[in-house]
């Protein structure tokens, strides 16, 4: 315990240097801005900025990226409430009640409860990360390749089969991502695969390229193709303020949201869609009868407070598997993992020993970032809302410029820009036919890691597949994978019977 406190203080010392504070502030401000702007999420923003890893030292850039990740969650709720176009999947539920509140002249209260709720949940979740991540890391050191492989299998299953509506389309997206991950040199035998003689493919397909193509370029193309005539009317912003009753109704919802969100972020169940929705359902059920009528009509403040807290708690908690196991459970976490890889840092249980300074500075910066974001989002919210006045054509065309920086700056190859366009077109098709994109990214980045773990595991088992079942931990994880796949089907089958 004392040990953790000391290391955390050391982290504050690193994160508190003026230069790192500036990076944190820049990250938080940029994150809020892109969270507010429709069409850009934290994942693609960090992806576009990955080239800076060539110059900026690891601690500073991780603080910067974490600020963007966090800030986007705060900013995203502003857009959901005022514009009803959630920028992030996690703020989808916020849009349900928040937009209705804003429509009935309570935008200020909705914005206040979401910002303060995000702060409360973010801070509690950061405390939990501080306490539990080192313990989990100590435990995770004992995991071998079979266990890792099963954990990754679990991440694949949940991200493609549980999230999203259709298991089939989720699986298709996942295997497409895995296919992209196959391109390049095999890690174990150095065998060249699927390069078709193209030199650019030797290093594999970068996750940056795929993320920027599938998110940023797709956004621009899709808007030109289909969304030109979709009108958005914006709600009026009024004073950001909560009454005493609204405080009283908000804080239990914040705490419940945090309690629901955090566990979901830590397990490889990917994303914050499930916890935010669960939190919404819980608040709706628990609300006093007098308030229940507000749900879906004039907007209930609990329906904003709970999901917002759940969202931030889940987002913070994704750092636990990322830092202790090296397993990303969201798209942004996957991009953060590749940022670490750029520095030659292997995320995993050893990270707390080998890069302890970085990890603790990152955790300390989360505390600092939450305070910064509260200030950036409460008194200054009017400033960010002005961003929503940028006309769509200029916004999306501008995004294309930044996409070029990210992709070309990565390895100075015009070939990558063509590839980016191709992936953009693919993204349009996926969006039109309702395929999820997260499995592609997770498959691409985890695929090669999972393959290496699988083959190492089989080497341990001297070529026998029983190695995955003979070890208790790995067998348990496999059972969980099967449960995750089978349970929803059984339930559906029983309901029909």
């Amino acid at each position, binding site marked *: 315990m004392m040990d953790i406190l000391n290391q955390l203080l050391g982290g504050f010392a690193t994160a508190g240097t003026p230069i790192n504070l500036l990076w944190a502030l820049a990250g938080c401000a940029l994150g809020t801005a892109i969270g507010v702007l429709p069409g850009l999420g934290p994942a693609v923003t960090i992806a576009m900025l990955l080239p*800076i890893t060539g*110059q*900026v030292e690891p601690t500073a850039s991780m603080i910067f990226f974490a600020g963007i990740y966090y800030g986007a969650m705060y900013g995203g709720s502003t857009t959901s409430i005022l514009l009803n176009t959630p920028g992030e999947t996690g703020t989808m539920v916020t849009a*349900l009640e928040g937009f209705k509140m804003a429509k009935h002249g309570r935008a200020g209260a909705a914005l206040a409860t979401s910002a303060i709720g995000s702060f409360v949940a973010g801070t509690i979740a950061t405390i939990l990360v501080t306490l539990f991540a080192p313990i989990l890391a100590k435990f995770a050191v004992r995991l071998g390749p079979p266990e890792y492989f099963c954990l990754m299998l679990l991440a694949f299953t949940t991200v493609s089969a549980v999230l*999203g*509506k*259709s*298991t*089939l*389309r989720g*699986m298709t997206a996942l*295997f*497409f991502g*895995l*296919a992209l991950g*196959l391109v390049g040199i095999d890690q174990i*035998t150095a*065998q060249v*695969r*699927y390069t078709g003689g193209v030199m650019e493919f030797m290093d594999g397909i970068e996750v940056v390229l795929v993320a920027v193509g599938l998110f940023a*370029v797709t956004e*621009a193309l*899709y*808007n*030109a*193709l*289909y*969304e*030109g*005539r979709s009108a958005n009317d914006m709600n009026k912003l009024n004073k950001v303020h909560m009454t005493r009753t609204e405080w009283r109704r908000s804080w239990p919802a914040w705490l419940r949201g945090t309690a629901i969100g955090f566990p979901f972020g830590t397990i490889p169940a990917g994303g914050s869609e499930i916890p935010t*929705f669960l939190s919404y359902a819980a608040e709706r059920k628990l609300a006093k009868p007098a308030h229940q009528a507000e749900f879906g009509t004039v907007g209930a403040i609990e329906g904003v407070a709970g999901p917002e807290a759940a969202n931030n708690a889940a987002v913070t908690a994704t750092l636990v598997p990322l830092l202790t196991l090296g397993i990303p459970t969201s798209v942004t976490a996957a991009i953060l993992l590749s940022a670490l890889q750029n520095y030659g840092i292997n995320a995993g249980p050893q990270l707390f020993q080998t890069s302890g300074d970085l990890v603790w500075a990152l955790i300390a910066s989360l505390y600092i970032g939450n305070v910064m974001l509260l200030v950036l989002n409460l008194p200054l919210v009017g400033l960010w809302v002005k961003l929503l006045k940028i006309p*769509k*054509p200029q916004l*999306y*065309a501008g995004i*294309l*410029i*930044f996409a*070029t*920086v990210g992709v070309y*700056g990565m390895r100075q190859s*015009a070939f990558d*820009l*063509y590839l*980016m*366009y191709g992936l*953009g077109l693919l993204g349009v*098709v996926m969006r*039109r*036919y*309702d395929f999820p994109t997260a499995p592609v990214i997770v498959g691409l980045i985890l*695929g090669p890691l999972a393959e290496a773990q699988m*083959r*190492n595991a*089989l*080497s341990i088992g001297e*070529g026998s*597949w029983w190695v995955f079942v003979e070890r208790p931990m790995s067998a348990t994880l496999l059972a969980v994978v099967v449960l995750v796949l089978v349970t*929803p*089907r059984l339930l559906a089958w029983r309901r029909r019977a």
Partner: protein
Amino acid sequence: MNPSPSPVPSSPDSNQPPVAGRGVGQLLVGAGALGVAAVLAYGATSISSDAGYAGVGPNFLPWVVSAALAICGSLLIFEALTGGYRQMDVPSGAPRGDWHALAWVSAGVLLNATLITTIGFILSCALCFTLAVRGLRASEGKPAGNLRQTVMDAVTGMLIAAPVYWLFTKLLAVNLPGLSSTGWI
């Protein structure tokens, strides 16, 4: 069937009125998945199966992915032929695409890719911006393409691209191509 996290559950059997041409599109997407599977299988035949101690070699995962995509593709085609994809949301936006607008944006991105090394980052991106804005504006049904507007867009594009170029090349030492070797354009 999955518990849908989306707050508006789609009808389980997806009996929405089909948009014209969607069935064909769904078939093509399924065929595309089969195509990728075929390419993967073709490539996998030339990958060594040398397994070492592991029992499976570098060609193992390629075959698995290829087989899985083949199954997914077949199932997608099956769904497309039997009433369309299941649990589909109506996609956002207009039912018909504005291909004219898409062509402008595509031209911007592709010309950017072609010209970036010759005319430099700033000019190339400004061109991409101008073309993309024109397409996006046309998609909104607004007048696009008069000379004054085009010049304004080109200048706006430069005003975005130039500071970005300086920020990334000078401050962050990211390598981006310039027209001249002065480092300013």
